């Protein structure tokens, strides 16, 4: 096995703010340094790219000294929060822009699916656009012609193929575009979030195709996504990026768990309102989970649990309702609970009070969850608390027979009764 991509000391600096009359002085200064053979003065001043804190410099490093190698045939997942530098890295790899310092060396053709459907022309028919889009992505006409039938049938738009693309629904457009891209045959394929589009049927088709490309055909794939589930199924290795640097370069499982721990904000067993929430008409004072009659956020599948919310109000007689969201550690919402589904439409506020929601036989599989609370007044969200409480679920005997499906296969459990008739 040989190295397909080698990234060395790769950095990319961006300039913040607006380009205009004021910025030409920097350009002239930079040019003057270059003329005298000196180093670019602005390369020293950049700050790391932390979006949330205000910096002092006009220059930021979207990427700073990235080093990694990708072996041929490997499927590398690149994960990280928004602004971690993932997209910048892909842009450099796909040569949309060039690095500030460092180098990328590669063997074979690189093609990128940064966004599908690039260069579609509204007035041209689907068939004409297949050729145009394919050529933009680097295929020759002969290559496209040999795959035309396959592309059309993969996209599932046979009927419309000779109709201008402007008449297409957005879903059809995406299908057609992905179909073209999926039939590219570069040695190295870069994929950015394309699987987030299309309906469920098409998504699974797309993931299947990606798997074929990577495993069956032995090509190198770099895959960027926020969808941990597809990263986990597709990738063999994971790189976690954080603030423009490589944080972890390891197996997918390790990278994902690092990513999640990076993301963990609060693992508190209960929520308690901070003093500044208290100015409103009504607010959630505290919230926690009880099992076996004691506050406990470590529970088992199949156990009875109670979610308890205590509120206080300055205004009496407000019509309130409560909603609770349960999210798994990938950030997918697994459950939505609301007082309107199993109890009362609204309750009227008093000075303080307690609302409880009993969940018999918790149907969640093992894992770490976070619970959000939302207090609605007159049917509208009024006080929302995100990541209020962490909920740790361990495997329990839900079905009473000691058997459980793999947590990856089934996110929730339901009672079921089977028989041969």
């Amino acid at each position, binding site marked *: 096995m040989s190295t397909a991509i080698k990234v060395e000391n790769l950095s990319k600096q961006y300039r913040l703010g607006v380009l205009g009359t004021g910025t030409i002085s920097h*350009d002239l200064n930079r040019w003057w340094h270059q003329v005298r053979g000196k180093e670019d003065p602005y390369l020293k001043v950049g700050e790391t790219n932390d979006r949330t804190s205000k910096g002092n410099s006009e220059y930021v490093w979207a990427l700073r000294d990235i080093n990694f190698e990708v072996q041929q045939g490997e499927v590398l997942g690149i994960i990280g929060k928004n602004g971690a530098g993932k997209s910048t890295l892909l*842009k450099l790899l796909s040569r*949309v822009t060039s*690095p500030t310092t460092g180098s990328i060396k*590669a063997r*074979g053709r*690189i093609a990128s699916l940064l966004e599908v459907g690039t260069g579609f022309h509204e007035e*041209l028919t689907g068939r004409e656009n297949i050729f145009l889009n394919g*050529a933009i992505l680097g295929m020759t006409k002969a290559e496209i012609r040999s795959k035309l039938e396959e592309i059309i049938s993969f996209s599932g738009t046979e009927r419309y193929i000779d109709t201008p693309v402007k008449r297409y629904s957005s879903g059809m457009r995406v299908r057609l575009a992905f179909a073209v891209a999926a039939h590219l045959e570069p040695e190295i394929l870069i994929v950015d979030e394309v699987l987030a589009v299309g309906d469920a049927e098409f998504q699974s088709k797309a993931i299947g195709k990606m798997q074929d490309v990577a495993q069956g055909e032995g090509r190198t794939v770099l895959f960027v996504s926020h969808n941990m589930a597809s990263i986990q199924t597709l990738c063999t290795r994971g790189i976690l990026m954080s603030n423009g640097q490589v944080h972890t370069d390891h197996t997918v499982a390790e990278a994902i768990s690092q990513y999640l721990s990076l993301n963990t904000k609060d693992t508190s067993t209960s929520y308690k309102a901070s003093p500044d929430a208290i100015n409103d008409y009504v607010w959630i004072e505290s919230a926690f989970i009880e099992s076996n009659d004691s506050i406990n956020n470590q529970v088992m599948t199949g156990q009875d649990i109670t979610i308890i919310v205590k509120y206080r109000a300055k205004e009496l007689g407000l019509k309130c309702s409560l909603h609770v969201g349960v999210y798994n550690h990938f950030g997918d919402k697994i459950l939505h609970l609301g007082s309107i589904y199993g109890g009362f439409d609204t309750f009227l506020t008093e000075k303080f009070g307690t609302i409880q929601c009993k969940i018999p036989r918790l149907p969640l599989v093992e894992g770490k969850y976070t619970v959000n609370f939302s207090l609605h007044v007159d049917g509208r969200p009024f006080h929302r608390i995100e990541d209020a409480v962490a909920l740790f679920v361990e495997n329990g005997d839900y079905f009473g027979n000691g058997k459980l499906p793999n947590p990856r296969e089934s996110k929730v459990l339901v009672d079921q009764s089977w028989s041969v008739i």
Partner: protein
Amino acid sequence: MKEEEEDWTLVIEPRSSLFDLQLKEVWRYRDLLQLFVRRDFVAVYKQTILGPIWFFIQPLFTTIIFTFVFGRVAGISTNGVPPLLFYMAGIISWNYFAECLNTTSTVFITNANIFGKVYFPRLITPLSIVFSNMLKFGVQLALFLVVFIYYLVTTDLIQPNFYLLLVPFLIILMAALGLGFGMLISSMTTKYRDLKFLVTFGVQLAMYASPVIYPLSSLPEKYRFIILANPMSGIIETFRFAFLGAGELNLNYLVYSTLFTIVIFFIGLVIFNKVQKSFMDTV
């Protein structure tokens, strides 16, 4: 490690040689060039009834207006050549050059969307502009030839001559000149847009500093150098002389135009190539 480093097929680095034009890659993408030309040519007149006839209408009407305004009202001489032919020859040549220049000069800005997502040799886009305009020019030239043959048969006012052999070369010059200027300007407008404003009316004004609407011979000797500084002047004069046999042919003018074109084309190409790598950051 060292021996392995030899066979990388792609190396991406911040700086590369100014003269590494990657023309091989452009050649590999020739199918894309062809499809772009097709797209531009086909898509423009979709959903129109007259379709490609519009290609005729524009130069035809301009010619008629010019004939009326400059020929009749202003009374500018056309060297004894039928005004219709005189103006049409100038207009289609100038239009070809001007369209190549105008469209190429905004190539980075108008294509930022697609350039920001996929890589292909950027040079393909301006080339496709030049070629699709060349098709359009071809259609207009055909119209010109029809009028030309009509006058050739019915009158003896025009004397086509063996300089007609130069016409393909003249067309290449117009294309290369428009392309060269366009690439230069588009590269310079990615960061600071000021130049963009100059181009639009600059090209319009430059037409009056070329022999499109008057023959070179009608100018007093001491002002001629202004007109001749315009590299299109030599080209248009030669073009017209080849077909109509009127006016004056001075091959020195053409040599100047050729040298000018070569220089502008290469400067444009080199700068375009340098800018294309990172223009996405500043566009």
